């Protein structure tokens, strides 16, 4: 075989080289343009315009509204309902972290160990995330129904009538009841996340530990859990962000009630804009939400980095 080939001319080299460099230069723009454009139009622009509206008093109809300076922000500062909603978000976040993540970890471990039928289990465990919030709302309004729902039904059947509750109608319970469903819905997501991390846990380490005489429990606590900590941090951040802007199930299940007992920032904002016709103030709430979530994300990233132990 010969290695002869028609050699390109020197100027040909230069030309294609120049074309190549140009392609290299424009490539980042071309690749990023669609994403950036979409994000600018559908996320950033709305965000900015909502921030602009927070300085306006406007019912959202007709044109403009009046510039009122910081009046909305002052009102927000004194709005106990807003701060109560924010508190509910924080409760939701805290409970989600302490309830969802541990359960998700345990389930991931269960799935990881259960060799038999784990495929079907993985599907069944994932069911909650597959149902839409609207559907879940219908479902759980029925399950929680104090008169007809299966929870109270089973309790009274078991002779535990005194344990039956007005799950969604009692302001002391409503938030907790909703959080339970939110957790139920999202645990599968984090389960999958942890499962992915666990499947990269080296088998040799388990074996070394068994040789070292570690029990299944020790292996879980001392080895697998630390292995998951990076994932845990990611998951916690996702839970935090998700909880701070949570809307769906609360809106369909309680609408924030009763008596605002389950009001969160997003439902409050929604109500302010779409029921009270206060677009200006609603935008103020939305902007505040954004800043609060951003602050919390940054702080929790920092904190988690501080506690990060090298793996």
């Amino acid at each position, binding site marked *: 075989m010969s290695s002869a080939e028609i050699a390109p001319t020197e100027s040909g080299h230069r030309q294609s080289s120049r074309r190549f460099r140009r392609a290299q230069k424009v490539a980042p723009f071309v690749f990023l343009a669609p994403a950036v454009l979409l994000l600018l139009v559908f996320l950033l622009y709305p965000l900015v315009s909502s921030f602009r509206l927070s300085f306006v008093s406007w019912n959202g109809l007709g044109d403009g509204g009046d510039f009122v300076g910081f009046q909305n922000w002052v009102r927000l500062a004194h709005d106990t309902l807003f701060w109560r909603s924010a508190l509910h978000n924080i409760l939701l976040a805290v409970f989600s972290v302490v309830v969802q993540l541990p359960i998700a970890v345990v389930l991931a471990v269960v799935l990881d160990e259960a060799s038999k039928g784990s495929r079907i289990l993985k599907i069944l465990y994932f069911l909650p995330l597959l149902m839409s919030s609207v559907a879940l709302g219908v479902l759980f309004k029925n399950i929680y129904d104090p008169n007809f729902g299966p929870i109270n039904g089973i309790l009274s059947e078991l002779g535990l009538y005194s344990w039956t509750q007005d799950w969604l109608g009692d302001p002391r319970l409503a938030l907790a009841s909703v959080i339970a469903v939110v957790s139920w819905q999202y645990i599968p997501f984090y389960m999958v996340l942890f499962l992915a991390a666990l499947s990269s846990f080296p088998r040799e380490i388990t074996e070394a530990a068994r040789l070292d*005489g*570690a029990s299944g429990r020790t292996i879980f606590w001392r080895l697998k859990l630390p292995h998951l900590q990076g994932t845990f941090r990611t998951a916690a951040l996702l839970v935090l962000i998700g909880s701070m802007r949570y809307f769906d199930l609360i809106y369909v299940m309680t609408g924030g009630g009763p008596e605002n007992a389950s009001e969160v920032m997003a439902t409050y904002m929604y109500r302010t804009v779409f029921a009270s016709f206060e677009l200006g103030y609603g935008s103020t709430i939305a902007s505040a939400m954004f800043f609060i979530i951003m602050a919390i994300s940054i702080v929790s990233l920092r904190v988690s980095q501080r506690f990060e*132990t090298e793996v």
Partner: protein
Amino acid sequence: MTSITLNNVEKSFGKVTVLHDIDLMIEDGEFCVFLGPSGCGKSTLLRMIAGIETVTSGDLRIGGERMNDVLPSERRVAMVFQNYALYPHMSVYENMAFGLKQAKTPKDEIAKRVQIAAKTLQIEPLLERRPKELSGGQRQRVAIGRAIVRQPAVFLFDEPLSNLDAALRVHMRTEIANLHRDFPHASMIYVTHDQTEAMALADKIVLLRSGEDVLTKGSIAQSGSPLELYHRPKNRFVAGFLGSPSMNFLPVTLVNANTEGATVRLASGEIIDVPVDARTLSAGAPLTLGVRPEHMVPAPPGTDTQVIRKVVHSIENFGEHSYLYLSDTPDEPCIAKVADDVLETAEGPVAFRVRPSACHLFDANGDALPYLADATSRTFA
């Protein structure tokens, strides 16, 4: 007290039997190497001894006691894994102390043992570090340290050097040899597929085979001292596996056989004497002659007996020695390894003398014909 006995051990994964008919005895303090091609079941065998893998059938005894159903942690074995399997989030100290803690060893006893091990392995300054802050060689020492502190009856190593680069490998090999010297009463089992390592370290090599053969011939191709396997391979598999480049195999026919040995004829007509017992075979039987490349010595001009004549197709010079390629079919190579450099190829065939004692004969099943005399090793003074 630390001897390991396997009686008729078998291992299957589902329907696939990977180890069959394993009979093995490892003496107190012996350094035993499991050698074999990839996938032949070396790791599986080791892991059965460790207790990480169950024994499908047969008896496993350590120090005379039946261990088939004893927990791994209670078998007095310690294992060094291929990729070390250090606990990534624990310091070196914690890694070494972990097993002792599980066994509820008193704190100061733990500290003492770790200190001693760390000193032996010269990793005292590293005790506070995490595994990922260590180099490959240091990690390996920690893995060994973790084994040492448990004062095991048996050390198990699963290819502990395969992740290291060549230079470090030689160095760490020495350290493992030292370990064997420092713990003369502990038995050691060492898995590798690198024959250099096996030869350098082993008191006893257990060479495993894989594939279909396992069910008909058992998994162990041969077990014995390194030199036994090198000089007296029991079958073609062993003969071909040990030595680099591989032994040359040449088809021959039996001319005659008596108590002195056998005489065979090559396809090209040369006659070779081999000191093996071929009396059960009749003249004309097809056999395979095995000669290692390093035993093909260029014959002085005029030599006529015990020579093999071959055309040299190509040459590789390594300074110290050269390979002469005597076959042009890469699948049935024939190589001579000669000292020093060879810069020019002679025209026509070249004659190589082969010592009778360096020749091997294999029958149609690949089994070696029994050797008659033993005169290969010599004392050096």
